């Protein structure tokens, strides 16, 4: 539940950004980010918010494992909606 997912900023408008989250475009809020992040940079996203900026290499490293956990969680969400 405390999982944050690395995502790339695609576009930005003030405190709102669109990120690429596993191929899907998502709108996230940047209001909790302690430093400025620009288009092309990576952030950790948790439930609609960027919570920390990370470098590209770190983001790419993390993607494999997180992908797996995310799938499990999505499955659970789908189950709970049934």
């Amino acid at each position: 539940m405390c999982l944050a997912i690395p995502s790339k900023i695609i576009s930005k408008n003030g405190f709102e950004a669109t990120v690429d989250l596993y191929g899907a475009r998502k709108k996230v809020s940047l209001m909790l980010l302690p430093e400025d992040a620009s288009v092309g940079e990576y952030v950790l996203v948790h439930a609609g918010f960027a919570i920390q900026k990370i470098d590209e290499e770190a983001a790419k490293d993390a993607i494999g494992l997180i992908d797996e956990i995310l799938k499990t969680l999505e499955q659970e969400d789908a189950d709970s909606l049934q």
Partner: protein
Amino acid sequence: MERRANGINRLLKKAGRPVKLMEVCGTHTVAIFRHGIRGLFPGISFLSGPGCPVCVTSKRDIDCSILIAREPGVTLLTFGDMMRVPGALGSLNRARADGADVKVVYSPLDAVAAAEKQPDRKFVFFATGFETTIPLVAAALDMAHSLGLDNFFVYSVHKLVPPALRALLSAPDARVSLDGFILPGHVSAIIGPRPYGFLAEEFHIPAVVTGFEADEIMEGTLMLLEQIESGSARVEVAYKKVVRDAGNQTALSLMDRYFRPFDAEWRGIGMIPASGLRLKEQWAAMDAERVFKPHPPVSHEVSPGDGGCSCGDVLRGLKLPVDCRLFGSGCTPDHPVGACMVSTEGSCAAYFKYGPFIKRQTSGQ
């Protein structure tokens, strides 16, 4: 990776005894299984502490959320994991089947958006989570406040990680004996390493904040074993790319603006001083607890023998899920008895999913 594995094995051999480490993050529990780290180091018992906010939400809080959801004109919104957690009045899933308006949202901001769209309905966000999630709910409150919404409320059952660790280590009856803590990566991205200082200073237990990759977990484990070997105790960070020394001050100050600590009940563990957060007095108009005043009919003392469920002992590191007599027979992810089996990141659910691949380890208590 190999260097780290060799280092760990060398230090384990030197220690000449089993080493007990506790992770306090559900994502770590799952990652340690996924990477097969248990199998690699049979000399280490990895115990799963209270690392999943879903699993520690008290029955009373579930019941309160159900009562609020049943109020006319109310929509209750929450994260998907909360839907199946059983309280005494059933689950939110059950409440929805019975006609209550309960919705799953991805972000607390979705709840604010819903409230903005329908000003004649009341929208209550049932907010669970540790420090990773709390600032998001503070941000949602901030947004609702600046939009001037009077139909958005939060029922906060947020929990804080450091007070829970202190409670585990100071329990007079059943105190777990641990050699080290693997501290959560994303909780620490918000709070930084400092709030864990007491682990080393007061309890002399080594602790390392680490990430979720195999090599990060192994690096963290190696750092812990090095501390154990040298007899030192410090809080270290093996996840510097995400965890800054000061944490995330923007998030912390927003959290502080809206919430204050109070003594909260943890499922299976009991009351822990200053371990929960509720809305500050000045935000009472957005506090669902004050506005709706839910009164569940029965009082739910924490009963460790809840239908034979040993969640409390599992969360405190006193038992492994496989030591519970219901594990896998009376209790499965499809028919969970305790909350640790409900959430994907609950210890029991993780053991159930990955169990066939591990050798039975005992908790050694």
